[in-house]
């Protein structure tokens, strides 16, 4: 475990030179007891309410986050600012026992009692991969569409995440995600004044750890990384490195829309996870502001100068349907030779016009498996009822159909494809809360 006390530029030896946001990000990235302790020393312990004693008051869905999250002035959900993803393998042989299941569930319930759900508290989900379910004789029920991860464009070649499970921890407070991780892994026996009844260290092995952040100020304060030019181009108000807001309410599916509706996993959803390397040198040094707006949103947004700053002025919608951008994607490809990312993606809609997924993604400085710092990237977490819904959305975003019949390139002037590279991808099932602990493939 790296010692935050001696970690050079990102450690407390230069703590005086690190801003609060840099420090919080660095602590989460490093992780462990020393990082948590340094975080508490510097900022004190956040005053976070405990969760309910009666856990039956919590929703059946693990992914029911929105009702607990704060909203901005436009009604958009405000994403929790600090994140940890734990990639886990089941530690036992063969299939999990009921005792192991109880241990894991007990640990999850302890966390729920320790922190109330919300930006100010803790939100977490536990998901399981197709590889995990392969250990059971029975396959997953037909009501679940959980495909194995794969490359979804000719120009991507991701490593596949086939670990058994993923835990996603989220909070506005860096010490909360760190303490929750420590408690879950058995490194500390109590958290936020609540004794842990159990931990998962005996039933899972942590095989990877990914971290990150989202929200105004954090990308700007942490832009001294590979993939971002040294001119510090990231706007102070930007929630993400690319400089624009995302997650507009009307461009997200509702939690109902992404929830599995029947079968033993009814109340669950699927969790797609990609690690995407960002290369924003060209984005910030060679593209103009108007080109960035055109490529991120839609050519109309650039031509009519619709986006101010990071795009807060757009309200609760990225103004795609309102400006007929998806419907005109092919025409724009033909007559401009350039199409926008949101414009293409907004073509993936169901028969009721709803988006197919919810973005719960965040930026990162993780460089590699060891969590070493220094590369701008994005952990793209999306929730959708079926993995097919994700594939459909990604297909729409690829714009292959548009490039085939126009001046649009496979990646050139094709949204933001040029600036991102999918390094890893994994698919997971987020069972309903009652089956979140080492479920069988067909629980009763």
């Amino acid at each position, binding site marked *: 475990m790296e010692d935050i006390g001696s970690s050079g530029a990102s450690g407390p030896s230069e703590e005086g030179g690190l801003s609060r946001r840099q420090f919080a990000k660095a602590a989460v990235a490093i992780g462990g007891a020393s990082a948590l302790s340094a975080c508490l020393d510097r900022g004190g312990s956040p005053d976070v309410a405990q969760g309910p004693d009666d856990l039956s008051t919590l929703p059946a869905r693990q992914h029911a986050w929105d009702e607990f999250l704060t909203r901005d002035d436009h009604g958009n959900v405000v994403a929790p600012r600090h994140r940890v993803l734990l990639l886990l393998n089941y530690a036992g042989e063969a299939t999990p026992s009921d005792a192991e299941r109880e241990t894991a569930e007990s640990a999850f319930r302890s966390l729920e009692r320790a922190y109330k759900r919300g930006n100010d508290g803790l939100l977490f989900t536990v998901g399981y991969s197709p590889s995990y379910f392969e250990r059971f004789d029975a396959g997953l029920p037909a009501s679940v569409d959980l495909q194995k991860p794969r490359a979804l464009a000719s*120009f991507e070649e991701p490593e596949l995440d086939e670990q058994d499970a993923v835990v996603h921890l989220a909070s506005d407070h860096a010490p909360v995600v760190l303490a929750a991780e420590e408690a879950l892994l058995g490194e500390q026996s109590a958290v936020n004044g609540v004794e842990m009844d159990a931990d998962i260290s005996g039933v899972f092995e942590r095989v990877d750890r990914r971290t990150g952040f989202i929200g105004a100020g954090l990308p700007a304060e942490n832009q001294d990384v590979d993939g971002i030019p040294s*001119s510090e181009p990231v706007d102070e108000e930007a929630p993400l490195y690319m400089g624009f807001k995302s997650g507009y309410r009307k461009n997200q599916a509702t939690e109902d829309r992404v929830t599995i509706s029947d079968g033993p996993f009814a109340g669950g959803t699927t969790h797609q996870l990609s690690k995407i390397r960002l290369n924003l040198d*060209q984005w910030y040094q060679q593209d103009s502001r108007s*080109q960035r707006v055109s490529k991120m949103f839609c050519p109309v947004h650039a031509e009519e100068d619709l986006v101010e700053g990071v795009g807060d002025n757009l309200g609760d919608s990225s103004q795609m349907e309102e400006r007929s951008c998806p419907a005109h994607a092919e025409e724009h*490809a033909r007559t401009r030779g350039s199409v926008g990312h949101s414009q293409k993606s907004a073509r993936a809609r169901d028969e009721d016009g709803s988006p197919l997924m919810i973005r719960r993604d965040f930026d990162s400085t993780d460089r590699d498996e060891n969590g070493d710092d220094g590369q701008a990237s994005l952990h793209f977490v999306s929730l959708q009822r079926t993995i097919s819904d994700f594939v459909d959305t990604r297909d729409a975003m690829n714009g292959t159909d548009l490039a085939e019949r126009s*001046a649009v*390139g496979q990646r050139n002037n094709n949204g933001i494809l040029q600036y991102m590279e999918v390094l890893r991808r994994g698919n997971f099932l987020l069972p309903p809360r009652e089956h979140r602990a080492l479920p069988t493939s067909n629980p009763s």
Partner: protein
Amino acid sequence: MKRRDVLAAGATFGLAGLAGCSGTFETESSSQFTTVEDRAETVYYPGHIDGMAMLGMGGSGRYRLGLMYSLPHAFWNISARDTNLARVSEDVSAHLMATIWDDETGTVLPTADVSADVLKDGEQVDSRPLWPMLSQTMGYHFGDNVALDGDGTYTARLDVEAMQARAMGGLAGAFEEGVTVEVEFEHTRDQLSNLTYEEFPDRMGDPGAIEPMEMEMPMSRAPERGDLPNVLGTGTTGDADFVAFAPDTTPEFADDGTTYLAVSPRTPYNRYPLPFMSLSATLTRDGKSVYDDVLLAGIDPDLGYHYGAAIDGVESGDSLTVTVDAPPQISRHEGYETAFVEMGEMEMTV
């Protein structure tokens, strides 16, 4: 412009408007910054040309790749009709360029997407997608300014994606899958700084273009008009020349009994083909429409890069309109950035 760029440029200059296609403009390289007034919307002689060094070649299957570099220089990228001067940033040390061609026919390939990882001693020193580009001395290629890390031996690892044009003739069936090509090269600062730097103070800004350079590898040149079969007509828009023709044999993707209508757009003077355009055509006979649809990119070793469609036939007296729906979405070196932007339709009588 940022102060550090001024220092890097090492020369004084006047503030210059960049928006729009006429008026004062500026060009730069790491060693010079020039200002030319009143550039027209045509191809023109640049203020200077940076010499290039051949770094090496590589290949995989029928793909062949040649890698070159020069001193870093500014260029213009384009989205729709929105051009933007991509300046030389302070951390780059060279302008890296790749040309990709077919090993069997020598045809320069308009592949869809090329990205480069540059490694030294196994460590990545730069990584980026390359812009599809057009320059007066080498035509269509892929390139960008990159940061190298001092003298030494480097490896460029280039991911070349499948070709984004219909392959015809001797290219049919090839280049549907991408490849990775590695080229090892030696770099010294002396080699780079000793490259020629040629100025054109007398012709700078005049209509015209520097001649294609002598290269050890194929260049992307469109056939002379006289070398194309059954020429139907010619036209000019945005300073680009267009030749419409109908080859005797139709490509294999076209239905039997159809005629292949092809349009070959090329730069004036140097005949470089212009890829990544949206083109469409209408063909009318006796006032009735025979064809009214898009033309799709195609490439043939003999016909070159062009745009085409299978139609029901073309007859003497037909009237053909070729429309540029979107101008070439390729970055441009100096002298090509004002032309090929505002483009319209051309009427030809067969």
